[in-house]
């Protein structure tokens, strides 16, 4: 465990934690401006989190240790997953990086959220949990196919290795990654519960998927859950950015290069956030049982991407 690894273990999750409320805030502002209203201030999510940490925690009488323990496990698994996607610099260690392990750590965090939704015995929670697991199951083949496509093109299953390979090549050496980028974008939309899959701003029971699961959380636990969702979004965005446009990522951990890399990544992240906000404003939410058709198209696209790679 050398200096490089220690800095990486502290810095990467911290970067994700600090940046995620800003990203969420920017998406909300972009959507609001397109809808013609001023919208909340961009730093609103930070104020929201600070407020939640001061509120009381309310537990239901029917709930068990799951709802008490769930948020801790959720944020712990999500921050561990954030260690797998280098955002500022690529570490020397080989401990983290397997792409399948990355996605499955996120599924574990989701699993405990789903159990928490069922714990209080309310109908909304059960409904949200059931839909979340359905959507998560159906998008999984697309996710694994995109992992396979990345592994085929870049000849490795370790995410830091992939970024290193991409940095060493030129912008035109892997053009099929544009297509993988499209699949990753769809996965980003699904995992961070954005329109057209799920509306993160609704609280009507017939239209919520992710929000319904966390209805029973309150106070600091709710802050942890929101942070976990934010980190998930940030980390997936980082993966998408670094796969399609990795320049700016530092190969070494010098102080000046770190600062430059952090600023570059923040700028790229905010541009992608604005794009996501724009994309959300252009589409309407798809009906729940039309989602499998939509995912089938995404699966078809990633399948033929891999087929093209194989038939080269």
């Amino acid at each position, binding site marked *: 465990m050398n200096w490089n690894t220690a800095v990486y273990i502290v810095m990467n999750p911290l970067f994700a934690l600090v940046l995620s409320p800003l990203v969420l805030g920017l998406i909300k502002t972009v959507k609001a401006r397109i809808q013609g209203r001023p919208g909340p201030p961009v730093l609103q999510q930070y104020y929201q989190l600070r407020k939640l940490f001061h509120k009381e925690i309310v537990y239901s009488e029917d709930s068990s240790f799951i709802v008490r323990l769930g948020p801790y*496990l959720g944020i712990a698994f999500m921050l561990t997953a954030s260690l797998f996607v280098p955002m500022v610099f690529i570490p020397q260690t080989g401990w983290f990086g397997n792409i399948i*392990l990355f996605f499955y750590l996120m599924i574990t965090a989701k699993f405990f959220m789903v159990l928490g939704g069922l714990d209080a015995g309310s109908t909304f929670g059960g409904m949200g949990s059931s839909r979340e697991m359905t959507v998560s199951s159906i998008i999984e083949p697309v996710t694994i196919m995109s992992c396979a496509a990345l592994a085929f093109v870049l000849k490795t299953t370790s995410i830091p290795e992939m970024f290193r390979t991409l940095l060493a090549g030129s912008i035109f050496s892997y053009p099929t990654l544009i297509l993988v980028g499209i699949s990753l974008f769809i996965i980003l939309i699904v995992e961070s519960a954005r329109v057209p899959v799920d509306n993160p701003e609704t609280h009507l029971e017939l239209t919520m998927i992710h929000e319904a699961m966390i209805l029973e959380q309150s106070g600091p*636990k709710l802050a942890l859950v929101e942070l976990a969702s934010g980190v998930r979004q940030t980390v997936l965005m980082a993966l998408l950015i670094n796969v399609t446009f990795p320049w700016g990522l530092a190969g070494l951990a010098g102080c000046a290069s770190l600062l430059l890399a952090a600023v570059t990544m923040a700028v790229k992240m905010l541009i992608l956030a604005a794009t996501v906000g724009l994309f959300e404003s252009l589409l309407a939410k798809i009906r729940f*049982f039309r989602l499998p058709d939509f995912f089938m198209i995404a699966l078809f696209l990633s399948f033929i991407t891999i087929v093209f790679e194989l038939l080269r």
Partner: protein
Amino acid sequence: MDFPEFSSGIEDKEAVVQSLFWVGGALCLVATILPLVLLFRPSRLLRQAALWVLLAGTGAISAAAILVISRSLDLHLTLLSITPQLALSFRLDKLSCFFVVIIGAVSFCAVIYSMTYIAHYKSERSKQFLASGLAFFILAMLLVVASSTTFGFLFFWELMSLSSFFLVMFDLDKPETQKAGIFYFSMTQMGTIFLLASFLLLYRFTGSFDISAASNIPQWGKGLVFVSLFIGFGTKAGIIPFHKWLPYAHSASPSNVSALMSGVMLKVPIYGLVRFIIDVFRPDLWWGIVLLFFGSITALLGIIYAFKEHDLKKMLAYCSIENLGVIVVGLGLYVIFDFYGLRVQADLCIYGALFHTLNHALFKSSLFMTAGSVVQATGTRDIEQMGGLIKRMPGTGAIFLVGACAIAALPPLNGFASEIMIFQAYLTSFSLGRPILEILLMAGLAALALTSTLAAACFAKAFGIIFLARPRSGAASAAKEAPFAQLLAPGILAALCVGFGVFSYQLISNVKSGMPLPDMLPIGIIVLVLTGVTFLLLLLTRSPVRKTETWGCGIPSQTGKMEYSGDGFSEPIVTVFKPVFRTRKLSTREFYDKYNSIPKSSSGEIGTLKFFEERLYVPIARFFMKIAGAVSNLHNVDMDALILYSFIAVVLVILGVGWWL
């Protein structure tokens, strides 16, 4: 594993192993006989003593197996030699002892579990039979995997099937148990016939009954033997389309027997497949494709069928089918990669499949045991009647949660550790060079991904509906925690699940170094540290905690009817996969007259089409019934016809003698 070599040399170790093996076997045999002594005055003391003896027996054999694995020995022992060809001999090498350890360890915990579980049955005499049958079943399974001749293999296989049949038929008075038992028996006998056919073919080609490398087999002979082996082993392992007996048998039998059957008996055919593929034949490519195809379909359909079940044990049985499918997929991939010479991927697949066998045995038996405690406490197997059990049975609930996380392939537990080996093999297989095969592999990868997330969804449903929220019936609210033995046994298995998951990289590196696998130990440590840090940070905020009732939109008193039900939870997925669950509408009408104008009675039914049962099994069964009917008609004739048959038979024999000799 590196143990310091003792100065006494290898022969001493062999002697120790031999003696442990025979002693263990003898103890199990004693445990079989003991409860049956003094049957007219069934004694609880004798039964408990028998269970302890069985514990010692399984412990001894497992110790022998562990010694063999750690020292990499290869022993040949003989029990009985009828002729030099037909002998009941055993071979203890690393592969068979791996399976012996699996069987022994899980049986050890199952026996601990049985110590208090058997007590709740009513009839004293049947309890003695249960204890005795358990011992015999375990002994038979241990001897099957240790056999080194096909003769011995088949002999102990039959003993295993017979003893498990009697154990399944334990609750004789219920009609569903009878149906389950007969179904199981006929399916397992069919499998045995195919095994017998393949062993006889093997004897014809190689001239010996030994399970060892076979050469000089013509190509068509190899293929034929493989197909009948696959059908024979596939029937016992629950590969689709031979799987139908599994849900019935597992739900009808007592829970300790289900744990043994699902956790251990399903692994014995896997041992058979692995042994024959690795040691006996050099497999062809199409074998791998067949295994991959049937394995993927089994995995996918198994978990999809599991979703609709609200009988707890049937759901667990279908999940077993799914995991067996994953293991067969691993075997198929091994054959394919081995054929093309991709050593790293082939190693990943075979070790992944074997590791998954071990892991499945651990977590499935743990799940069945906790499920048995739940069923015993609430008196029903229906998930929809349970709920809120985590407050009443916290220990059972926590152990079930660990098992559910393991089977849902959540890192860093062992279910994920073995599945990632197969995923890693898929993802690094880009150097095959045959695009068509690679496209098939990609389809298999998509199916595997879908299967593992559906398993997570299924167990989120199972754990959530059974243990969380409010009780849905009076029986559930009156449930009590299980006795200590019924917590200890699955608890040991659950702890092993966690251990094997977190230390998976270290374990696999000891067995075979250089495999490109992620290390789970740092992950586990980091998760623990982060959880602790967050917990401490939250304590600093000193938020007040308040308890109130769940928000129910203002309804003053909430009952169990307001929570989500199991059927509701699985409804979206069932709707998405609707083509798999076909519904069948049946309507019958009876009339008084022949012009069908005065109705007498009518009935209508909408149900799930049991596809394999109705479209595949029943027509085959009817066909055989017709043949059996025709044959029995031949019997019901008078004396003269019988003499006529003998006359024809004698003439044919004379002709045969003249022609062939």
